[in-house]
Structure formats: C-alpha cells, structure tokens
C-alpha cells in the first residue's frame, strides 16, 4: 500500500478523464488508472500502420458538451475541431445525394430529388431545433428516481412535466413522436425521397441492435441537431490529430487541475470492506486506497469482474444481467494510396471531405438488419466513412490517406463460426460493398485493420463490443440507465460511483456522464462531511 487518494477513477477514456478533471477542480486528490498504454478509451488515435494515424474507434465529434469545452478550457489544451462538411450518399442508379452544411445548397440538392422534400427540409430543421432545445438541459441533469418517496425527487419529475407542458402543441406532438417512433415512420411524415430518409434514419440505429423501422430509433435523429461545435448548432467535426486529441486535451486539463494519471495499470479488483469500496488492487498486486472509486468502465466489468456477484444484492445482479449490450457494429480502418473515385460523382471533390454514407435506401438498411437478427453480419452493410486526412494532413504521409469505416450490422454473437474466423470475410464484405460505388478502392488499399465486436471487447474493454457501453434504447435510458433505481451515478456499494457511457445520458463523445457523475459525487461528498 502506498498513498491514499480521495478518488480513484477507473478507466482513462474521455468520460473518466472528464470526471477526474471536475473532481480535481473541486479540490479532490484524484488518480486515473488506464489499462492500455494510451489514454482515451474508445476516443483514441493510434498509428496503426507506420505513418497512418487512425481514430481507431470513435471517429467524429458532435456532442461534446459545450460547457465542458468551456469549463475545462479545452482549446487552450490543444483541442481544435475541424468541420466535417456534409454527407455524401452514392446511389446504385448512378445518382447521389449530397447534403452540406450550407443550408441553401442542401435545399437545392434535395430539390433535385423532390421539390416537396426541399420545402419540408426547412420546416423539419426548425422543428428539430426546437426539440433539441427541449432535450438539452435533460442531458446535463442527474435523472430523478420516479419511485422515490422523497419530495425533492418529485420536484425533479414535476420540472420535466411542466417543461413538457409549456411546449407548443406542435412541439409536444413532435416530442412524443420522436421519443417513441421509428426513424423511418417519423421521416415518412416529412419526406418522400427514399435515399434521404435512409441516410437520415441511419443515425437512429448506430450502436443499437434495431432496424430503422423499429420504434425508438427516431430519438437519435435529434442528436444531429444537438451537435454544437464552438457554438455552431448542428455541425459535426473531426478533431485535429484524430479523436485521441480530444482525450489528450481533456487529460491535459485534468493534469493541470492536479490529477495523476497512470497508464498500463489494469485493475484486477475493487477492494471492499464492510460493503464499502476502499480502494483497488492492480493486476500486478499493487493496492491503492481511496475514499471513493469512480468507474468509467461498463457495469459488467465494474460489478461482475471487479467486484463479484457475491458482494451485490440479487436484484441488482439480475438487472445488470438484463442490461443489454449486444454490439451491432464493427470498424474497418483503411490506409490508402490515393482517394476513392465514386462512380456517381467522380473525382476528388469536396464530397470526400464529409461523411460518405452507404445507405442508398430504406429497404437496403432494413435488409442489412434482417441478416444480423438471425446471427450473420450484413453482406451489404450500412457504412459510414470519413477520410480525415483530407482535412487534417497530419494523420497520413503526404499523398496518402486514411479512411475510417463504421460498419453496421455486425452482431457480437454469430450463429455460425466465430469472429476470429470471420474477421477477414467481414472486412471483404465491407470493401466489396464500397467497391460497388467506388471500384478503384481495392487497388488503393495498402493496409487494413478490421475491428469486429469481439475485437472491440478485447482491445477496448467494451462488453460485447457495444460502442455505447450498452444499447441506447428507451428502456435503458434516463432513469433506467444502467439499472432501475441506480441512475444517479451511485451504486449499491457505498463509495463506488459510475461515470461512463453506461450512465445517463449515454454514449458518444459527449463527456456528459463524466461531468454529471462528478457533480453528483461532489454534492454527496458535501452532505456526508
């Protein structure tokens, strides 16, 4: 046993680091322990192939809370967000849909497909921004417990009720629909262009094992309108130097606030004494004491692996086992000798600077899901690609490029075979699908890294490969995340808190769980003193 800390944070992902930074700023002595050699968790940049740096897992920023950027002064610590301009969707009929950040241009582009849709697009944007305003404060609150008998808890619920009541009739209608409907049903009400609906609805399924027609997927459409970068509503971006640069900026801010950070420090066990967490034991046997442990890894690792069922209440264990991960996506990172040439829009135009989405139609998306439901990866998956080296040349050697492909669906549990056998087959399916639209891709590939859900679990500690530390479905959100009764960042173990994506408001490079948990912990700390 060496020294004693106020708080030990398990996991040096972006949420763990945010959590640590806020705690240190409140005067706590904080230590962050990261299992891997790099910080960032799933928000990490690695030089996978010599000279080629990849945002290995998470690849775009949109939801990083502006208050975190401000309060931790991240730009001063090196955070620079470069705009990701638009989404390009090639279609098999030789046409394409290319939406950009310039509203007027996008409107003209949509009008090419349907005049009605171009008009609806204006209305849609306005409505969604209203909704985003409604949802925003909910992201940064500790969820109330609807079963509480404490009048303070009721006050929080009543706050939500009154807020909803104050919305206009149309906004109420939209809000209810967004929270409960499927993305496609919701979009069907606004638009008629298939490719537009398919591309927009794709955001509703990312990281969930649901199809675009499944209720509950509409809600994530909102996220696109919540992305705020340097105050600009609804823009997406890359971090200069890759996603890992975000984690590094947060880590820098945390260190400045006095946080101590150790990498290659895997934890074997959370130490308990009389039902209270008292410290952690590292894999090498070292024990570190702390008043509070704050875990940013998912509940399965925190409770089942680091604590053990025998120390936990039965009901809580049952709820944890019911918490659904079932990863549904994979990642393919390509090192390229040049740029892909799309049949539908040849050349190295600005369309390559944004996201390139293989989502040509709703039926295509739905069929991709159907295969996965029965335990196969999609032969023709939904792919969301970006080429960050076009915007940020520092990530690839001159003239070369890195391309990041997010791929869905890739179910964690395969019906036949296992991921170690199927990894290359999966990679081929992705490349073949891209080649249908950009035939030159095969000649350009120098190297490729294929990350299956199993790899995400092994490498990055994401149980079952779920990129959000648990599905973002209604029954796992807000006061139900990660377990009923335990959505206030506390746990049944005294002195143990949760601060990762498995807590409200969930996954994505948001930082909100880490910040909310820190604020809750500081509040509790004051009370207990």
């Amino acid at each position, binding site marked *: 046993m060496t020294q004693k800390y106020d708080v030990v944070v398990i996991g040096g992902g972006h949420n763990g680091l945010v959590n640590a930074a806020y705690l240190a700023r409140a005067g706590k002595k904080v230590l962050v322990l990261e299992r891997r050699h790099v910080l960032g968790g799933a928000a990490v940049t690695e030089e996978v192939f010599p000279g080629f740096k990849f945002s290995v897992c998470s690849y775009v920023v949109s939801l990083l809370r502006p208050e975190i950027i401000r309060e931790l002064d991240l730009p001063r610590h090196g955070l620079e967000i470069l705009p990701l301009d638009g989404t390009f969707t090639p279609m098999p009929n030789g046409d394409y849909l290319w939406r950009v950040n310039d509203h007027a241009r996008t409107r003209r582009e949509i009008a090419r497909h349907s005049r009605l849709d171009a008009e609806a697009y204006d209305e849609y944007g306005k409505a969604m921004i209203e909704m985003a305003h409604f949802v925003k404060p909910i992201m940064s609150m500790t969820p109330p417990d609807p079963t509480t008998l404490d009048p303070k808890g009721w006050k929080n619920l009543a706050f939500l009720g009154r807020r909803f009541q104050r919305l206009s009739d149309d906004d109420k209608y939209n809000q209810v629909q967004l929270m409960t409907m499927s993305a496609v049903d919701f979009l069907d009400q606004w638009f008629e262009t298939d490719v537009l609906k398919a591309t927009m609805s794709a955001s509703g399924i990312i990281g969930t094992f649901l199809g675009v027609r499944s*209720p*509950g997927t509409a809600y994530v459409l909102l996220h696109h309108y919540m992305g705020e970068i340097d105050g600009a509503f609804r823009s997406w971006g890359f971090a200069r130097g890759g996603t890992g640069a975000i984690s590094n900026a947060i880590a820098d801010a945390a260190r400045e606030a006095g946080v101590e950070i150790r990498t290659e420090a895997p934890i074997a066990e959370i130490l308990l004494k009389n039902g209270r967490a008292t410290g952690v034991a590292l894999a090498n046997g070292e024990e570190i004491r702390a008043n509070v442990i704050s875990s940013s890894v998912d509940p399965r690792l925190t409770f089942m692996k680091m604590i053990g069922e025998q120390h936990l209440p039965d009901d809580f264990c049952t709820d944890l086992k019911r918490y659904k991960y079932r990863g549904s996506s994979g990642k393919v990172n390509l090192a390229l000798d040049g740029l892909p040439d799309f049949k539908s829009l040849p050349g190295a135009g600005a369309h390559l600077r944004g996201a390139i989405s293989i989502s040509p139609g709703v*039926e295509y998306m739905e069929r991709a899901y159907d295969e996965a439901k029965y335990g196969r990866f999609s032969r023709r998956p939904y792919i969301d690609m970006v080429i960050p080296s076009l915007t940020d040349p520092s990530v690839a050697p001159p003239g070369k490029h890195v391309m990041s492909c997010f791929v869905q669906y890739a179910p964690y549990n395969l019906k036949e075979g296992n991921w170690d056998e199927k990894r290359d087959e999966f990679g081929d399916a992705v490349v073949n699908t891209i080649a249908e639209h950009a035939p030159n891709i095969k000649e350009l590939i120098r190297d490729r890294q294929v990350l299956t859900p199993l790899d995400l679990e092994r490498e990055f500690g994401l149980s079952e490969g779920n990129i959000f530390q648990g599905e973002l479905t*209604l*029954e796992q959100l807000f006061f139900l995340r990660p377990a009923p009764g335990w959505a206030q960042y506390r746990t049944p173990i005294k002195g143990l808190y949760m601060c990762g994506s498995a807590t409200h408001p969930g996954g994505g490079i948001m930082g909100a769980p880490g910040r909310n948990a820190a604020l809750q912990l500081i509040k509790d700390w004051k009370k207990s003193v």
Partner: protein
Amino acid sequence: MKCDVVIIGGGHNGLVAACYLAKGGLKTLVLERRENVGSGAELDHALGPFSSQIITDLNLRLELLNPKVRVLALSDDGQSLCIYNNDVDATVKEIEKFSLKDAKSYPEFVESFSRIGRVLAPLLSMTPPSIDKPSKGDVWQLGKVGLAFRGLGKKDEYRLLRWGPMAVADLVSEWFETELLRATVAARGIHGAFAGPWSAGTSLGLLWQAAMDGSALASSVSVRGGMRAFVQTLADAAKSFGAEIRTSAEVERIESGKVVLRNGEEVEARAIVSSADPRTTFLKLVDPVELDPNFLLKMRNYRAPGVVAIVKLRLSALPAFRGIDSEEKLSGRIHIGPEIDYLERAFDASKYGEFSREPYLDIAIDDKVMSIHAQFAPYKLKEGDWNTRREEFADVVVDRISHYASNLKDLIVDRQVITPLDLEQSYGLSGGNIHHGEQTLDQSFTFRPLIGWAQYRTPLQSLYLCGAGTHPGGGVTGLPGANAAREVARDFKAGKL
C-alpha cells in the same frame, strides 16, 4: 329527420355508446352502412375481453363462456403447450414438460402481470387527461392511479416503466428459456401490429392485455351463440333503451349539425358520434375545408397499416391436431408461431410488401368454423394485388395448419378469405387495420388518436369519436364507446350541445 345523437357505424363500440346515450334519455339513432350491425366484432375470436362494468351497467344478458384453455401452442416437432385460464398449477405442469426453470418462473410472471394490470385497469375506463389544462377531475383520477402505482412497490414500478418501450422478445427472454413459451407470450405484443417481436415497444400489448383481464396473454372468453349473438344482444339492448338502429344506411358526409346519407337523406343531430376510424371520419366524411390544415396533416400521418388477413374455414369435423388427444385443448385459442424467429421472419416479409410464406396464425374453432387471423398480410402488396392473390395466401394458411393437422384439407367444406383490402372496402377499416390504427406508444392513451384530441372530442364542435381509434383502442372491449358516451352526455348536461 332530427334527433339528439346520431351515431355513425353500428360496430360494437357504436352500439355501446348508443346504449348509454339512449339510456340517458337522448334520442339516439345508429346508422350502419352494412346490412348487419357489429360485423367487425364478428371477425374477432373472442371478447377482447368485454368490460364487465358495461355488462352490469347495461344489464346485458350474455352467457359468457370461459373455456378452460386460454391458448394452445403447437410446435413443429409435434409437441404442444397448453396455457390454462386461471389455473396456474395446470399450466405449470404443462411447462414442466419443457423446462423446470420456466415452470418455476411462470407463477411469478402471472402474479406480476396481474398486479400491474390491476394498477393500469382504471386507466382503461377513464378519459385520458388533457395535458395542457388538466381538469380537477383529471388530476384526481391520475392521482389515484399514481397512488396505485406507488402501491406496487419499487420492483414492479420499475418493471412497468421498463416494459412499456421494450421489445417483447427481450421481455419474454427475461422470464423464460423455452422457445415455444416465449413465442406464445410474445405473440400478444404483435397481434394486429406492423411489428415483429424484436421491434421495440411491442411489450405494450401485453401490458394493455393485463390491464383488461389481468393476464398477459390474449383472452379466450367467448359468448354462447358466438360473436353474432353478442352483437345482437347489444343491438337489442340499445333498442330497449329507445335507440333506433338503421342498417344499409351509409353516411356520405358529416356537415355542421347533420349527416348526409348516400341516398341524399339528411339527419340533423345535436351531437354526431363517429365510431368509424379516425382516418375515415376526418379524411373521408368531413370536408377538408372544415378542418385546420395542421390537424389534417397529423391525421394523414396517423398510422393504420393493415397486417392481418382473416380466413374462415367451415369444416365437416374437428381436425386432428398432431399430439393433441382431447377436444378440450382446442377450446381456447390455438397459436401457430413456435419460435420468436419464426414470428420475426413472418414480419420481415411484410416490410417488403410480401405476405409471409410461413405466417403467424391465431386460430379459434367454434362450432366447426375455424377462424384464423393470419399475419403478416400487408395491405399494400409489392406484386399484384389482393384481389388476384387472395386465394394464394389462403392456400399458404391452409398448408401451414395442415402441417399440424394433416387431415384438415379433407374437412374443408367452404372457405372465406378476408384480406386487408376487404377489411377496408367491406368493413370500412382504413388501411385494413383491425385496431383502427396502430397501438404504439405515440398513438396510445392521451395521444390516441392525436395529442390534444384524446378526450373523444374533435376540432368540429358537435362531432365526437367513439371507435377503437380512441382510448383504449382495439379489441372487443366496448370501452371506447362507453368512455365517449360519458363525455357526450357530460357536454349535453353542461349545455354545450
């Protein structure tokens, strides 16, 4: 002609509303487009279950038959699973054939749903509160439900909150490991819905069912004499209270203070109560200029996709089902859809405008008539149309059942096929949806049919809704009719009409 209330549509909800309003002393006229009243209810296998409060209020002389069996589920390997009504022990014995673990979970499953059902039940017979300006009565009612919710205890409270938006496949796998049992329970969540068991929100059907009669599975209660006798009893009751019922009287238009029949006749009324579905009422019967464009737009977006086709087989004898030794086991519903994946695959086809090659079937046999709800049969087919493909689908259904009852084909005397298109054209169900609109979260309770219009009133002053497109929705419950009648009577009393 002039009367106090004219009710459009003599379905069971229209008749229930007529009973209450006529009983309250209002001169009530029911106008039914078809030759008989209650033809929609006749398509159902069972009372949904019909509200016992209504039976008492209206003093209906119904002889309810409560068969021992709720549902018999058949599996491909010749095994069967029988779930009994109100007999947990017998059901547990059945489940033990498959899994001891499931047999152990079953009593708690039943208990949990029945507790939650008791809390939800009062919601069914209340008018959904207004969100903008909840009245004192609304607050009182909700307060009572809130207290009952508190009474559930933390565990069930959270169950209720979690289950609402959950995929039913997930819910059943939390309770059971036997695929046949999982699929049988899950079926309630997708019946009549454009959804497979993996679709989120499908658990809601189980909660509503539990609210109605305390069990998560579809009811098998029926009436002596069948659904026709049931409808006749309702019609007789309405007449006995003084209501007039006219059949073959199709309403063509709703105008201010009157309805215009197809033959040009006009009927003036202080209140017009439509039991037709919301889309039919507002998009067909009302002149669009009378409605706010925003309301019209929302109404056009009200979802009512048809997914069920009904096949009726007249048989010369009871078919012999593989592995079934007693007739009693066939007295409830018969479920064909042995696995969750089977149900999901059946749904898959309909997403692409095809009917299921291996459909999910919900069957009831009454007096040598086998009535089958076959899912999924999408209203819009990608290839051909229902008039050319009707028999093809019926063949698929018959083949499917023959798989479990090999002598079926030899016993068929006659068959009738009612496709979603028929449901729309002959039965007036918009889109062929048997529930007058999907029963998803965003189209339930205070959002049914639309947020702001869930109190049975409409943007048109004297027009009310009383059909399954209002709270609490589809099934032969009579509750939408009874709830609407209460609101209409209230407005009469307040001098608003």
